[in-house]
């Protein structure tokens, strides 16, 4: 009967209950949907960051990061391969690369670029380049003259597929190595800066140009979706000497991206607080109004023998019912929105320049994190009940005589 009493009481002023319920629905919806949107952005930024040649983990010669020159290459690929086979989970992929700074030039222009020598087949499973060719074709293993450049670089050099491009860099003899390549394809990337920065040749062509026998600059490793890179990195560190190798996770390799993610987490937390404060005032106000309207009834309940604590429970039960209904509708609405946008995504073309600057794609696919959903609901129910304690305590403090005289 307590439930019936609470249920009927909340619908005594159905308009007021509907208004506060709508506020809770919007609050819960925004907490879940907007956090899913931000998680989608986070996921996208991480995915872009990782696929743009970073990977989940990278292995370098210990001095390479501070001085990325050809001398700081790794010369024992077999030892590395053995360690990788031992530590990596079966679904992980990895690729070795040569990566040096170079000058690209043609008859009209020259530009500083990063020359990347790749094994075309494993590289396609590790970085974006395998799926990014928009014109021409991808590199074939053993191709000694082909080069792939970004569409933006191609436009900047006013050249086209089939034309030649000359690359210059320092070889292992400390001499200037120069080699002419033919552009066999172009790639499109999320960021124009990526298209202007990287040029891809086969690892054999790069070795020949740089006189680097079996050496490599880096190994990039891709782990399955959402896998934590840290335990794998720790496993590799036990296999590979820290005196020779530096093993870094993407969080260490992309500190700015990592900081962005932490800021995003902060935004989500602040958003939860803001929504709850707005909602909390609504709940307190509505419950207080309901309590003062029924002051005489609370006096009666006390006169009949209801203890103050029972009255608090009665008011809290009413708040709980409003909160739970609002939460259920808010959750359903949020999941419906996420489901509806799961295929098409949210088009951010209007903000493309700003989004691109932050490394975010033009289309964001909302990603629900179960932790966010649980926290949103816990925040609403626990804090909702906590703020309802104030009007409930007010109701419990009415003295029966004064309350019964109230009209």
């Amino acid at each position: 009967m307590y439930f019936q009493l609470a249920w009927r009481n909340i619908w005594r002023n159905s308009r007021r209950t509907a208004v506060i319920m709508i506020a809770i629905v919007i609050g819960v919806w925004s907490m879940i949907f907007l956090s899913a949107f931000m998680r989608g952005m986070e996921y996208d930024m991480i995915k872009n960051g990782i696929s743009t040649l970073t990977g989940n983990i990278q292995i370098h010669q210990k001095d390479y990061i501070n001085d990325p020159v050809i001398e700081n290459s790794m010369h024992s690929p077999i030892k590395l391969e053995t360690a990788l086979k031992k530590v990596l989970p079966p679904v992980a992929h990895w690729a070795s690369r040569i990566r040096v700074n170079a000058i690209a030039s043609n008859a009209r222009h020259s530009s500083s670029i990063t020359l990347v020598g790749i094994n075309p087949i494993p590289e396609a499973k590790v970085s974006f380049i395998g799926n990014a060719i928009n014109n021409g074709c991808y590199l074939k293993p053993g191709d000694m003259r082909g080069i792939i450049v970004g569409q933006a670089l191609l436009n900047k050099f006013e050249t086209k597929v089939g034309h030649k491009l000359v690359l210059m860099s320092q070889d292992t003899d400390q001499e200037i190595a120069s080699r002419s390549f033919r552009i066999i394809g172009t790639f499109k990337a999320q960021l124009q800066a990526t298209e202007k920065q990287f040029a891809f040749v086969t690892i054999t062509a790069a070795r020949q140009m740089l006189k680097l026998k079996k050496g490599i600059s880096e190994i990039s490793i891709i782990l399955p979706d959402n896998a934590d890179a840290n335990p794998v990195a720790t496993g590799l560190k036990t296999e590979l000497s820290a005196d020779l190798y530096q093993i870094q996770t993407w969080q260490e390799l992309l500190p700015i991206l990592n900081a962005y993610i932490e800021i995003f987490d902060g935004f989500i937390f602040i958003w939860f607080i803001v929504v709850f404060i707005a909602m909390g005032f609504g709940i307190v106000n509505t419950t207080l109004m309901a309590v003062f309207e029924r002051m005489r009834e609370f006096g009666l309940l006390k006169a009949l023998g209801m203890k103050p604590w029972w009255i608090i429970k009665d008011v809290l039960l009413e708040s709980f019912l409003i909160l739970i209904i609002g939460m259920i509708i808010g959750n359903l609405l949020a999941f419906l929105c996420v489901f509806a946008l799961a295929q098409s995504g949210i088009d951010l073309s209007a903000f493309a320049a700003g989004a691109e600057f932050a490394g975010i794609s033009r289309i964001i696919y909302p990603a629900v994190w179960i932790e966010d959903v649980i926290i949103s609901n816990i925040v609403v129910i626990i804090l909702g009940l906590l703020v309802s304690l104030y009007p409930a305590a007010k109701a419990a403090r009415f003295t029966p005589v004064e309350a019964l005289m109230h009209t």
Partner: protein
Amino acid sequence: MGIVECKDIKKTYQQGKIEVHALKDVSLSIDKGGFAALAGPSGSGKTTLLNIIGGLDQPDSGSVSVAGNTFEKMTQSQLALLRLHNVGFIFQSYNLIPVLSAVENVEFVMLLQGVQATQRRERAMAILDDVGLEGKYHRRPAELSGGQQQRVAVARAIVSNPSIVLADEPTANLDSKTGNGLLEMMRKMNEEKKVTFIFSTHDKMVMDYARRLVLIRDGRIVDDKIK
């Protein structure tokens, strides 16, 4: 010793800057099974005395005991429990819970007492039958007349077999015929079930029905007649 014992009760209210002496050294004893009326004009202190007997208000000095329980030093929760098990209330303006039906209003006190659901429903329906409301169990207060609402209030007051029932001007909002019927019903319950009734009233009809008439004026008992 009576079921209600009041000794040297004093109660003063502050109305703005003025002190109102509602009760001045009132002593009263009412026996079990009594049917007594506290009568007097408005502002004489009869409702204040009734509220103090019911534990709804505290006296400034003096002692009150109901069914052997002395109110002094009792907490609000203890007083609530005492009211729940020993005191039934009937108010001038009925004071039913508007969202509950007639039978649910009667059941509510038993719910607070922890009576089992099926037993609650049986007893509530039986008492509603006793007060002449058979067939109207599921009507909400708004769907009942004033007299019918007051009958529900009487049923609620007596359903848990309290030691005393306190009725504050129970006929004030009723026409004389309905009021007369209600009083007749309460007297019948007093005689058959030995429920102690104490009224506060200035209605002559109630005074005529009462077997004991306590006249209060300016906060003092000026006459106490047993008919």
